[in-house]
């Protein structure tokens, strides 16, 4: 167990371990900090959307930090709703709202922030992506590595190499599910799923008929040599339980 510290967040005393991120401590204590690019699925965070900024006062000095990646190293006071933070967060929201005007979640968050007066900013039409890179992180962490950020500056986007269907994509939808703004589009019919310009078949559980995913994603989950399961997790558990029951019937 590492060293324990007591910090105050918005006046509330919170106990935390040394090295814990401020965002995690705040959430545990039911103090909401808005975020977009943070996902519980990963240990390292993007710190890209900048919405989670808070003010930290350490040794009498105040500074603005991104709470999702700022580790608590000493006793400090954290302010999540100070005047400075609200002002700066409003600017960040305005920039994000102009970057990704079609992202519903940003529009909703922005409406509650009430950040007006940024009409001079240019709005990018039909854009939802804020380029946080969570999708790329998800794809890499799965070991598929089918997508990455391409180009740079104003042309930067997330895409597969050469803008062609990727042979490494398994159609698992991890990228689309992790995306905070719903920017990754896919289409699904009764038997097929199309994502990143590639069409996948769909596999259903042999027992209950529930959707299990694409053949590629199921095979990827068990490894190249592994035998792909024919029933879904639920049914497999039930089968196992039945088997156990049979085994211990006469005990």
């Amino acid at each position, binding site marked *: 167990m590492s060293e324990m510290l007591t910090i105050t967040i918005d006046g509330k005393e919170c106990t935390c371990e040394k090295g814990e991120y401020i965002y995690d401590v705040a959430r545990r204590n039911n103090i909401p900090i808005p975020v977009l690019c943070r996902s519980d699925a990963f240990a390292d965070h993007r710190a890209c959307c900048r919405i989670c900024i808070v003010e930290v006062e350490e040794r009498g000095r105040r500074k603005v930090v991104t709470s999702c990646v700022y580790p608590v190293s000493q006793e400090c006071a954290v302010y999540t709703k100070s005047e400075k933070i609200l002002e700066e967060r409003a600017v960040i929201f305005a920039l994000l709202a102009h970057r990704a005007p079609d992202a519903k979640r940003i529009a909703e968050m922005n409406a509650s922030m009430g950040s007006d007066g940024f009409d001079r900013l240019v709005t990018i039409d039909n854009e939802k992506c804020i380029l946080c890179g969570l999708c*790329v992180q998800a794809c890499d962490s799965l070991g*598929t*590595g*089918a*997508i*990455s*950020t391409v180009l740079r500056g104003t042309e930067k986007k997330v895409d597969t*190499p*050469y803008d062609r269907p990727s042979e*490494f994509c398994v159609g698992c939808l991890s990228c689309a599910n992790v995306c905070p703004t719903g920017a990754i589009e896919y289409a699904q019919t009764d038997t097929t799923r199309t994502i990143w310009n590639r069409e996948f078949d769909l596999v259903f559980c042999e027992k209950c008929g529930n959707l299990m995913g694409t053949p590629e994603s199921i095979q990827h989950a068990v490894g190249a040599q592994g035998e792909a399961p024919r029933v879904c997790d639920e049914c497999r558990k039930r089968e196992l339980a039945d088997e156990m029951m049979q085994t211990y019937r006469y005990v």
Partner: protein
Amino acid sequence: MTDQEQASKISEIIEAYPADQRFALAAMQDMQHAFNYIPEEGLSALAAYLGCAEAQLYSMATFYKALSLTPKGDHIVKICNGTACHLRGAMNLATELKRNLGIDPGETTEDGTFSVELVNCLGSCALAPVMLVDGTYHNKLRVDQIPGIIESYANGEVVSAHD
């Protein structure tokens, strides 16, 4: 260059480096140098050798201006558009090149002889406006000098530095 020659050249370049991801950029630069661009086969071979995702290398290759995924021309013409050159009419040079070669900066002529690029500063502001062709500086250029320079490279009178 046949496919086979290209493949052996690619593996020669790649295997000169240890199989570690930090050599990705160096290997890609070497490929750029050898082929004037990074062929698709080169990118996938490098990914396999380094054990990283091809998408990651593609990301790097599209990020750095020094790397290109489409073949560049035999002669690369760089027009400096830094502050000094810009003030002394670098854009007029670009317009003259467009009139001469029919391409905008960032493009390559159809016959693959010339590529024109606009760069930010070549560090020779005293010689403005500057145009760099295959590593040779052409200083204090006037627009009317351009056709002659281009012609001398097109006719092969000047042997380019990287051949």
